[in-house]
């Protein structure tokens, strides 16, 4: 889809936040049940949205059902506010719900995300909405929905542990780095969506409400604030997050998730914050990384070109 042009044609006439009231009520009921049963996947009747499934229609439907005129929305994709996906979803809600938008984590009341949790600690009153492609953590072990449902019902999670242990046997450690399964409130094993396992600890005892929407698979699930979220592991192989050998090349942040950026075809590369808002705020506060001088130089060049025009 050609992003915003395709969307605006479909939106000639629309309801507030796009969805009709009956659909919103149905999704709202599902969200309340999801909150009451942390980590349990509530089925819902997913609607067609004016964007393909890969674009996060589950997250979009959850956001559309909770958003109101007083909200401020932030949308991130792989930690960045400026990808086509993030920009289009933000523009969609500006148009259909006329809400304020922001890129600053702390200014947002609702943050819709794909693949990352912001580095900045979320606070009470914020809602994090995840776009989920595959909500069922047991799907790779058992393709039949009737069987996975039974396994959740009986709290039969042995297969999941076997799978993780096979990793250890094969690689010497648990090789799963994305969508690393968690146990929510001591009861349901849940897929945190394809966030890096680096972000798993941020889900634990978060002050924010976390909602998960899977459009194609028609599931909504939730983690209330102040809820225990434990990454599955073994006594002799405890859960560990990724570590990076160097700080962010632009803002020198340590202990954050970094993306590798290829600089040239001679093998030049740098590691920078995946959370663009976090990186920008740090640089605005005066933090400088290894390559920030060059970046500042490029920035100045751009400024000179602007002036010359």
């Amino acid at each position: 889809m050609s992003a915003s042009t395709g969307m605006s044609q479909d939106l000639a006439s629309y309801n507030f936040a796009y969805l009709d009231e009956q659909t919103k009520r149905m999704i709202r009921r599902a969200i309340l049940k999801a909150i009451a049963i942390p980590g349990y996947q509530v089925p819902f009747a997913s609607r067609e949205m004016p964007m393909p499934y890969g674009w996060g229609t589950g997250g979009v439907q959850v956001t559309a059902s909770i958003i109101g005129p007083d909200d401020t929305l932030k949308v991130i994709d792989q930690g960045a506010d400026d990808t086509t996906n993030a920009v289009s979803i933000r523009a969609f809600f500006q148009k259909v719900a006329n809400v304020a938008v922001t890129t600053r984590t702390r200014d947002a009341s609702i943050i819709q995300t794909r693949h990352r949790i912001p580095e900045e600690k979320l606070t009470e009153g914020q809602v994090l909405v995840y776009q989920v492609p595959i909500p069922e953590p047991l799907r790779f072990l058992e393709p039949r929905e009737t069987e996975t449902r039974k396994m959740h019902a009986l709290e039969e999670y042995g297969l999941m542990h076997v799978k993780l242990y096979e990793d250890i046997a094969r690689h010497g450690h648990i090789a799963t780095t994305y969508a690393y399964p968690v146990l929510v409130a001591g009861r349901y094993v849940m897929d945190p969506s394809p966030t890096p396992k680096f972000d798993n600890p941020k889900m634990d005892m978060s002050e924010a409400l976390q909602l998960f929407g899977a459009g194609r698979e028609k599931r909504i699930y939730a983690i209330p604030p102040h809820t225990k979220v434990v990454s599955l592991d073994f006594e002799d192989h405890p859960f560990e997050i990724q570590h990076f050998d160097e700080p962010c090349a632009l803002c020198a942040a340590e202990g954050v998730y970094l993306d590798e950026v290829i600089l040239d075809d001679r093998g030049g590369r740098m590691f920078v914050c995946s959370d663009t808002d976090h990186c920008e705020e740090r640089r605005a506060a005066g933090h400088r990384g290894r390559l920030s001088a060059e970046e500042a130089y490029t920035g100045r060049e751009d400024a000179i070109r602007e002036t010359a025009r």
Partner: protein
Amino acid sequence: MTMAQFDTQAVSGGFTDPVFEAQAAFRALMDASARPGTIHDLPAGLAPPAPLGAGSGAVMLALCDPDTPVWLAEALRGEAVSAWIAFQCGAPIVGDGASAAFAFAAANDMPALSALSAGTQEYPDRATTLVVEVEAFEGGEEIMIEGPGILGRSRIAPMGLPHSFLNERAGNRALFPRGVDVVLVCGSRVMALPRSTVLSRKSEQEAN
């Protein structure tokens, strides 16, 4: 009931701005459910026929529709209330609590939680939400609550709940992940006690 009564009562007293008031009511319920025991404001100004309260009315219009069977406590089973529900949200009224998605009652007229649906082990979401009007959110017996959404423990003291409520809730909690979710309303304010919340008497805890 005369036709005149139907016209004036059934068609009035709902949301004046349904889209935004339903969203506001839902957000109050969502925040209340995410943080059990905290009190949130529902849209004010609803005037359902007595004895259905404004808060219960707001919850009903935000969440109920032809897809959600509604059970009413004895005191609410008048024609005026039924006509209001039929006109305002179209929810079917059922006599069997176990088949209801939502149940409405006053604290002194509460159904047994076991008479409502707790869902199934495989579909625990198919459970009744019980909306109870209490006399006040303070002044009742002190209850300690803990569970998801609550940092440590917190205290509530809703007034007017039957003495059996805590025992019933303990039985309900033992069914987890099955269970009835409870929403308390007072005037136009709301507090939620989802099934995940563990309740205990403050006096009993001090004794331990």
